[in-house]
């Protein structure tokens, strides 16, 4: 009945405690708006298609089978059907449900024209069990209404009972039973609640009941039944149990289950003659204690587990499951009926490490009603007596750790606060009547209200809990909208968010597709990526309880996830991959209370064709400078004007990867993936990537930016072709040029050449330099001096010389 955060209740059962006139769909909607979310409701027995009213015209014995009858049945058609029937109660003139040829019964059986020992049968006269609407398999259903033969009677056969599947939140264990739900319905429709009848038990049974610790077990009540006669429980009880999804077992167990589903209090019946020295001890298990539970599993217990024991040994796991050896059987003569309250945390702990969840544990974990243990026994005793399952003793035993636990809690609810939270204008008197409907009695004291909360509402502990109840009964839909919110707070822009959005949108405009990959990484990925052991990316944080081993660590880089995306898209025949992701990576750190560093990265991958198939140029693949150009442009967009230093090749297989340093701080890694790594991720193509640590970039700062005057004088352009040795890099030359030239505005490299007729180990670079002065038009001699200074410095520092034509 419970599990998955819900309860199944039967409409017929609910009607025992409160009048319900509403149609099921109306009740479902009203309960939902009252906070009991009805997830689903359905008729207990869904009506069958193809069942018609039949009139038995005559009956004679089957010539070759004594137990069978040959019937002629009028089902309205032109032809009277011949049907063979095995039931004893079939007789002439009877109205019966007939399943016609082609009908499929709930058990999956398909009705067909058939022959039984030489005689034809053209349909089936049905019993309750065959139609799935009851337990009676003995005879066919005798319809107690008249219909035209052949008329469909599905509607009239279906049960009038409905099953409601209600979501119950963890704070409301009181709703996990029929009386609890009926109480809400009574409050909803302002109708009286009829509590079930009980037998009155007197206190003071002479029984040895020992509770080791009142914290573990705040209350233990027990009743005693003599002259037990086990057998099946009566039909009405079995019907209700079945409707609520519980299998009938025997009259004693059925009564305990019935009370559980009625009042929400779990009961357990012990065979009293199986309890050593006829006593009950509620204690923690000792090491070495073991118990075979009702599910036939032998369980080893330890000090975490609370057990019910007799003089020698445990006989039950408190609040979770009983022991097999003290179970009620056909030979049971005397019973001890337990109704207790256990510490929810202990029940939860035992349930978790025993990996077993029961109706009882589900309720105990949610801390039920400590005030109801005796009433539940009294109800059970009455039922046992009524159905003749045994003879209840007049006295019961009851140990309560602290009498204050069963008292009503007094809580003050300030009317002003009610209105402040709800946005209403209720008076104290109005709030009193709202609470009254939930059986919370309260009195007015000055402007406020003092409420007495009954023990079945353990969840109401403070004023705000009462306000919530008042709001719920008042109806959220009635809470006004005319109160405009008096908000005068302005939104302020988050610089980090703005920057990330800007970068993402910029990359999109550059033709990148954004992807979002999983935070989880395969612990094998760092090895696959070829990262060296001391690389911080190899030290990933492990999840204690991962979904799968391949998702068991937190990513230290976006690359593995993105490579998988590239691979999957290559498989779907994407010719070119140009993707980026903005996301967090997790690097262990000795930060706040052991939380890792969460670094925001922007990572991009380029592989396969540089552009879609086209007619205007030769198709080629992405190369290093495609990637580098995008990263340079991105940094430009971010306002990074400082010098970026490329620290040469990475280590090991990562020789074609550069670290990008800004003020000697690593801001990016960029290059080509080693082909050995690319192949692991199923790529036969070169894979280029950059990985940018966006958090570490200096902020451009919206305030520092100033407009610069545009220089009205023309620029002078000069081309310069120089020869350098192989060890000299473009960046070295550029840096010297930039440093030496005072009036340099811009520099372009427009030709680059290696080896060939220059000779081994030589390169030539051709630059175009643009000079401009803010003071006036430049004359040639000034520019010549600039060039002269540049060449001198190049020769002196780098042995770079002007190329002779």
């Amino acid at each position, binding site marked *: 009945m419970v599990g998955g955060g819900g309860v199944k209740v039967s409409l017929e059962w609910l009607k025992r405690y409160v009048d319900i006139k509403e149609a099921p769909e109306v009740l479902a909607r009203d309960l939902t708006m009252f906070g009991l979310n009805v997830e689903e409701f359905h008729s207990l027995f869904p009506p069958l298609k193809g069942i018609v009213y039949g009139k038995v015209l005559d009956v004679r014995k089957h010539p070759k089978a004594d137990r069978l009858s040959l019937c002629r049945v009028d089902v309205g058609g032109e032809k009277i059907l011949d049907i063979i029937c095995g039931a004893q109660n079939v007789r002439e003139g009877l109205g019966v449900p007939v399943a016609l040829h082609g009908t499929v019964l709930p058990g999956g059986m398909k009705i067909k024209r058939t022959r039984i020992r030489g005689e034809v049968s053209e349909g089936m006269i049905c019993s309750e069990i065959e139609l799935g609407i009851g337990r009676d398999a003995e005879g066919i259903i005798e319809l107690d209404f008249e219909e035209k033969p052949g008329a469909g009677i599905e509607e009239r056969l279906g049960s009038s009972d409905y099953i409601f599947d209600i979501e119950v939140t963890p704070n409301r264990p009181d709703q996990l039973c029929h009386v609890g739900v009926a109480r809400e319905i009574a409050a909803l429709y302002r109708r009286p609640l009829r509590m079930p009848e009980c037998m009155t038990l007197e206190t003071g049974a002479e029984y040895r009941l020992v509770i080791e610790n009142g914290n573990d077990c705040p209350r233990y009540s027990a009743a005693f039944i003599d002259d037990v006669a086990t057998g099946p429980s009566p039909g009405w009880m079995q019907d209700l149990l079945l409707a609520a999804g519980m299998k009938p077992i025997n009259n004693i167990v059925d009564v305990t289950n019935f009370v559980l589903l009625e009042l929400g209090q779990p009961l357990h019946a012990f065979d009293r003659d199986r309890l050593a020295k006829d006593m009950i001890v509620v204690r923690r298990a000792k090491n070495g204690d073991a118990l075979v539970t009702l599910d036939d599993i032998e369980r080893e217990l330890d000090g975490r587990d609370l057990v019910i024991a007799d003089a020698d040994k445990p006989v039950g796991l408190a609040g979770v499951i009983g022991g097999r050896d003290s179970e009620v059987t056909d030979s049971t003569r005397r019973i001890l009926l337990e109704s207790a309250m256990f510490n929810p945390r202990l029940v939860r702990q035992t349930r978790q490490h025993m990996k077993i969840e029961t109706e009882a544990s589900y309720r105990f974990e949610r801390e039920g009603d400590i005030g109801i243990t005796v009433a539940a026994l009294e109800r059970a005793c009455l039922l046992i007596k009524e159905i003749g399952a045994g003879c209840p003793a007049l006295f019961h035993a009851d140990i309560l750790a602290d009498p204050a636990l069963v008292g009503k809690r007094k809580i003050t609810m300030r009317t002003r606060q009610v209105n402040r939270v709800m946005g209403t204008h209720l008076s104290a008197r109005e709030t009193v009547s709202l609470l009254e409907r939930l059986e919370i009695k309260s009195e007015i004291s000055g402007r406020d209200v003092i409420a007495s909360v009954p023990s079945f509402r353990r969840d109401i502990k403070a004023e705000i809990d009462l306000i919530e109840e008042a709001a719920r009964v008042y109806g959220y839909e009635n809470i006004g909208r005319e109160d405009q919110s008096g908000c005068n707070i302005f939104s302020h822009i*988050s610089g980090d968010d703005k920057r990330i959005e800007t970068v993402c949108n910029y990359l999109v405009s550059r033709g990148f597709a954004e992807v*979002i990959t999983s935070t989880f990484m395969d612990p094998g990925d760092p090895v696959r990526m070829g990262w060296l052991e001391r690389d911080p990316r190899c030290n990933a944080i492990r999840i204690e309880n991962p979904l799968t081993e391949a998702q068991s660590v937190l990513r230290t880089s976006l690359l593995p996830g993105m490579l998988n995306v590239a691979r999957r898209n290559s498989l779907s025949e994407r010719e070119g991959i140009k993707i980026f992701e903005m996301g967090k990576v997790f690097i262990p750190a000795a930060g706040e209370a052991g939380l890792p560093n969460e670094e925001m990265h922007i990572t991009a991958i380029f592989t396969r064709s540089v552009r879609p198939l086209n007619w205007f140029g030769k198709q080629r693949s992405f190369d290093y400078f495609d990637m580098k150009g995008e990263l340079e442009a991105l940094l430009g967009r971010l306002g990074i004007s400082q010098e970026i230093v490329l620290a040469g090749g990475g280590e090991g297989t990562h020789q074609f990867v550069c670290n990008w340093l800004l003020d000697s701080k690593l801001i990016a890694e960029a290059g080509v993936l080693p082909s050995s790594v690319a192949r692991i991720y199923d790529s036969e193509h070169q894979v280029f990537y950059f990985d940018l640590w966006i958090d570490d970039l200096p902020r451009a700062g919206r305030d520092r930016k100033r407009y610069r005057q545009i220089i009205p004088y023309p620029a002078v352009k000069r081309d310069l072709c120089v020869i350098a040795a192989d060890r000299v890099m473009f960046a070295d030359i550029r840096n010297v040029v930039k440093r030496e030239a005072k009036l340099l505005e811009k520099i372009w490299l427009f030709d680059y050449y290696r080896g060939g007729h220059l000779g081994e180990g030589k390169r030539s670079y051709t630059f175009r330099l643009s000079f401009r002065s803010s003071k006036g038009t430049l004359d040639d001699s000034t520019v010549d001096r600039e060039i002269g200074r540049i060449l001198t410095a190049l020769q002196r520092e780098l042995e770079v010389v002007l190329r002779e034509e």
Partner: protein
Amino acid sequence: MNDDDASRLDIEGFEERSVKAIMEARTPEMLEEQRIRFLGRKGEITEVLRSIVRLSKDERPVVGGRLNELKQRLNALIEERKALLETSDGDEEPFCGDPTLPGRRGWEGGRHVLHRVLADIKEIFFGMGYSLATGPDVELDYYNFEALNFPPDHPSRDTQDTFYINRDILLRTQTSPVQVRYMERHTPPLRIIVPGRVYRNETPDPSHAAEFLQMEGLYIDTDVSLADLKNDVTFFIHSFFGSDAKVRFRPHFFPFTEPSAEVDMSCFACKGEGCSICQKTGWIEIMGSGMVHPHVFRYAGYETDRYTGFAFGMGIDRIAMLKYGIGDIRRFLANDLRFNSQFWTEIWSGVVE
């Protein structure tokens, strides 16, 4: 004049055809071709001139004069056009002979649909005065549960299956821990939204993911009420889904808000009639919400009675699924570009008036 003459002497028709051909010539060479075709020695004009003999003596000079005039005009036009074509910087013909050839384009890109939807949602809340706040994905149990009034070992924790790093550290199951973190550093009035990735230890299926995007909202001041919560949430739903959406608040339970409410909106697909999207109820669950629980204020170090506030939270994946009819939540992290690219064209996830 008989019909025969009229057809041969269609001067207007000749003029129209020749002018059109001259104006359409795109190179000097093409122009020369046209000159020869119309005005050359064996050109069409010679044909026309020859046919004059068949006209009456009175008509001949009139028609002849008109033709000469036309010939001069066409010659002038050709010269003019030639000059134009020759002086245009000597450009080559730019169409490669076919202006309908495809243009030079690179790869197209686009945002991921989840981030697009989030951006649209953020925009609405920024307009309402909310600011952005963020927090860590790897979170302390304290912020994710305890300070949000989930007691240790309490069944309320069962509603959120959790990935643990160790006893005290976990992957946040909700963006709500940022509420307490933010309150610790700020004094009301405050009004924030908190987007971020959250994690649940659930086996993925079409409607459950182990990681998804959530967005939280929080507003705290001295007198914020349930009525204010209804206002803001309704305003958002109307902005995002359209002002014809009906909104209902139904009582619910969250440990960190009280009173709490689930927010449903009328199904946009069936307008409340009941369909497969709303599971025949006519309503779609869109977010959880409620008034900030006094215990949370206490954990954040506020005087509990001084302030009231509300909070709400929604799943961005779920909203994107509803909005675009995506049936499987696992699509979002699969990144099949055939899926991703469907959301690159100019779309607005919100309402466009």
